[in-house]
């Protein structure tokens, strides 16, 4: 089974988000980078499927040259090949253009090597949404470009022994929704679908030396030339003008007391709030 996993380099967000002076990006001078938790699970899910069915995992990202770090982290977890769609540092590429660029990888027209050269993927996995921009659409747009079925927000994925169909489920407002899909298909997953492994030492050593295929990515949204590809007319992605950290409510918590002595006051508050009659 040949599986493509798409990931994105995002800042590691710790205590608080600070912006650059022009308010168009997160100040990352003091932060590390990672991929989203959903995507860590997508890599893990792909590696498990390849352990069961054979084949290989190719990991792809669209980002600056530095995103090589995230590709190597995925290689250390068991991916066999990596493709970097390289963009200018600091330039954001929107979901329409991103899906079109990933489409070129999925069909093998951009930089795929090995058994998956020329496409030939059975499955494309992505995170449900990137933790930074949270566009919630790259997987579905990619599925439409490929003409494949898609399921999103998946928390459990099972592929039949023949490797021809999959059952994918998620919870929606307390109800379990299960989708049946024929392969090849696109599935976006969420944290909780599995517990990702830690990279092994041999895996890390292999990842350090592995070759990464680099291809030029699309021009960013600010360049205005990125298109959706394969559809009637070029569509423009949403154009960010500025970012804003919402004010945390500056309220002073009312301390009800210490330990069990606070319980009568706590009960009074619950009554006031109407959750206790």
């Amino acid at each position, binding site marked *: 089974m040949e599986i493509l996993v798409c990931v994105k380099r995002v800042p590691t967000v710790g205590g*608080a*988000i600070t912006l650059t002076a022009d308010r168009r990006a*997160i100040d990352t001078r003091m932060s590390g980078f990672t991929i*989203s938790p*959903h995507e860590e699970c997508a890599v893990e899910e792909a590696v498990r499927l390849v352990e069961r069915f054979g084949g290989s995992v190719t990991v792809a990202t669209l980002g600056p040259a530095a995103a090589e770090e995230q590709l190597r982290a995925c290689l250390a977890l068991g991916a066999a090949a990596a493709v970097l769609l390289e963009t200018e540092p600091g330039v954001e590429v929107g*979901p329409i253009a991103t899906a079109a660029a990933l489409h070129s990888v999925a069909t093998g027209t951009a930089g795929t090597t090995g058994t998956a050269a020329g496409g030939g993927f059975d499955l494309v996995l992505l995170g449900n949404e990137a*933790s*930074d*921009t*949270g566009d*919630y*659409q790259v*997987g*579905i*747009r990619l*599925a*439409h470009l490929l003409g494949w*079925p898609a399921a*999103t*927000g998946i*928390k459990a994925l099972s592929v039949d022994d023949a490797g021809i169909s999959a059952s994918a489920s998620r919870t*929606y*407002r*307390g*109800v*379990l929704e299960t*989708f*049946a899909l024929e392969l090849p298909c696109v599935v976006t997953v*969420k*944290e*909780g679908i599995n*517990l990702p492994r830690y990279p092994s030492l041999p895996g890390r050593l292999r990842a350090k030396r592995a070759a990464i295929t680099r291809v030029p990515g699309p021009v960013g949204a600010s360049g205005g030339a990125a298109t959706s590809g394969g559809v*009637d007319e070029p*569509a*423009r992605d*949403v*154009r*960010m*003008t*500025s*970012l804003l*950290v*919402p004010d945390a*409510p500056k*309220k002073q*918590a*009312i*301390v*009800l007391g*210490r*330990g*069990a002595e*606070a*319980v009568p006051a*706590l*009960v009074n*508050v619950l009554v006031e*709030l109407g*959750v*206790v009659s």
Partner: protein
Amino acid sequence: MTVFCLVELDGGAGPGGASGVADVSLRAITLARGLAASASGTPGRVAAVVFAGLSAGGPGSDGLESESESDGLESEGLESERLRADVGPVLVADLAAYGVTDVYAVSGIDGYAPLAWARVLQWLLSASPNPGLHPSPDDSSLPSPGEPPHPLPEPSRHAVVAAGTERGNEVLAHLGAITALPMAANCTAAVDNGGGEYAIARQRWAGLLLEEAVLEAPVALLTVATDSVSPVPAERPAAVMVHHVSPLVDGSDLAVRAVETAAGAGGASLATARVVVGGGRGVGSAEGFAPLEELAALLGGVVGVSRVVTSEGWRPHTQQVGQTGTKITPDLYLACGISGAIQHIAGCSGAKNLIAINTDPAAPMMTRADYAVIGNLHEVIPALVTALRERAAPDS
């Protein structure tokens, strides 16, 4: 302009279930109403699109004839096409209170099929004469029986809005893909600047960051953050026209569809709970959650947890509150032993009231809370459970 709003329902997951408009959809309609009002020119309309449970027969169902195939949606001989979407007067009144002027009650699609739902929205948007569209001739049960059917909206400058739920984001992403239109997820504000340009604000990092942006498109596709825009009824209820439509959908668009079963753990939904009792690292073990479960049951709520709790395997991931878990909007979030990492805050900042119990008074969750109890949750929660039990049954 007409702003079409995909409306999700509470309760009635299957046929015959009692359905109300989901809170997330009331928030979406509130944003949609503001967007419609911001458009210059003709007064904007807000049209709710309801994929309702199906009821066989029903008054007026005989009026639905089989569609011709000239509507662009191929017939696949759906057996349910003669059924009528079950949109009750209570639902219509709820929508009217929020300023909805038109309700498109869609039948003929059994259950949730994301691409088929997107096709129906595309079809409603299309300006071409559409023989499949049936303004209902017998709307006698509706608040506005006297209003004549109005013509289909003009072709351009529409918007489609949905709640930023698993379904809303998914359906609008499909709609964006099949129409080659951009889609903006999890908006908190939207204004029509005219000329096909919309000023929007949307959430990044699950709401830890806001993006101000421009959306240029003949039709704006937006989902609305589930925890930011407050649901506000219109100043006065709108007169509602209900249109029963039964579009014929290509079978291939129904290939991916949800089979629904009750989720485990009682099926109570974290996303819709009015009270959430949260547990974090301070709970200390899987067994430590028993008093929190007991408290949640007493308060008519559910248990939610922080990421460390699921990483430790103490509770299933379905109970995780936060950026990569569930975003909650309860009336009360009672956070016990949770320090308050910002990814967790992103998931609970929509709570109306926040009470924190923590041994560390300087924990971020404690400083954000409305009320704080400084102490060990293993002392406070059992004492609270006892006090609530005594209060409920003072004689025993």
